[in-house]
């Protein structure tokens, strides 16, 4: 049992990213591994991130104008 890898778990948040946990491997289209430098990651689903494939919180820019920035 102790050798078993935990299943990859993907949690999709409404109006937010997909949070990935577990023994995933992240890679680009050439199958080169992308090292996120952390175990749990959030992947962008809105296309607004400047750090794709990772989420950088830019989803908050959608919708209401953030004129006070």
């Amino acid at each position: 049992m102790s050798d078993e890898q935990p299943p990859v778990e993907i949690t999709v948040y409404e109006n937010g990213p997909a949070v990935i946990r577990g023994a995933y491997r992240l890679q680009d289209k050439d199958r080169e591994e992308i090292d996120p430098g952390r175990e749990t990651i959030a992947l962008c689903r809105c296309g607004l991130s400047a750090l794709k494939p990772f989420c950088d919180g830019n989803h908050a820019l959608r919708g209401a104008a953030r004129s006070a920035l």
Partner: protein
Amino acid sequence: MRLPAPRGPVSTALFACLSGEPGPVPSRLTELVDALPETTADARSDEDVQISLWTCYGLAYDGFEGVDEGWEWQPSLLAVRGALEAVFERDLLADVRMPEDLSPEQVPAFLMDLCGPSTPAGLLKFMHQNATLGQFKEMVIHRSIDGLHEADAHTWAIPRVTGRAKSALIEIQADEYGGGMPGRSHSDLYAILMTELDLDPEYGAYIDQIPAASLSIHTLRSMFGLHHRWRGGILGNLAATEIGSSFINRRFSEGLARVGGSKKARWFYDEHILADAVHEQLAAHDMCGAFVADYPAEWERLVIGALATLNIRGLFAGSIVEAWAAEGTSLRALATV
């Protein structure tokens, strides 16, 4: 850490008392704190109240050189702290407006919207595009009281909640402490940021220069964290801190790079970009969403905690922008000896 310099009658009496043996506090101190409801206009920005409260809480964190540890649980001093907290809480709540039609199940979406990436008074945009290196250093000094103890006040909440909210809180906190890896906790990264900017990373090194509006960010967390009845409030405080944080920290990192900050200096901000993209979801949905569902009598306290946090952040940002607009320093002048 040494005791700070007093900033008024309460802190003068308090610090004199702390230098002695633990015991009953002088009646003069009790009279002063009993009069605070009349003598304090807004405890959030009152220098005497905030430095006194910060020092009372400091006994529960690092303690002070020359101050007997017995003071931490001395009933007479806890009564003084309680009087300081009462006036602080009065002024926090006076400025909180609960939305009338908000229901518990709407809380996660409400928090995500409320705590979005905007910061009051245009401070974020200024840090990103205009701040000088000197102004960056000032900002880092202001935030050092909190940054060098990052996550600690929220840890007080762990034994106070159960179930899904606790699990989400622990997942966030473990990350804040670098997953247990020495040197990787966010407070360690803050010390690196300070060192890279030629600032002293020792906790409290700049305490006498840090104004009340900056101290209140930390005293708010400590008050929420140290009181069971504010366990919802401390979770709301954490959510308000995490939500929007990725967005804010990316712009701080870019702003610091603009004025020549090294990659190592920016590590603190860069770490928060990816970490808090996860944390903001955990905080809003898993932690706060679970808490309001599992503790139905306390959901409003959580929202009040988030609102009070944003109000204090607004006061802090406003005071800095105002000082810089007047082309002065946002820090307090050191007393000349």
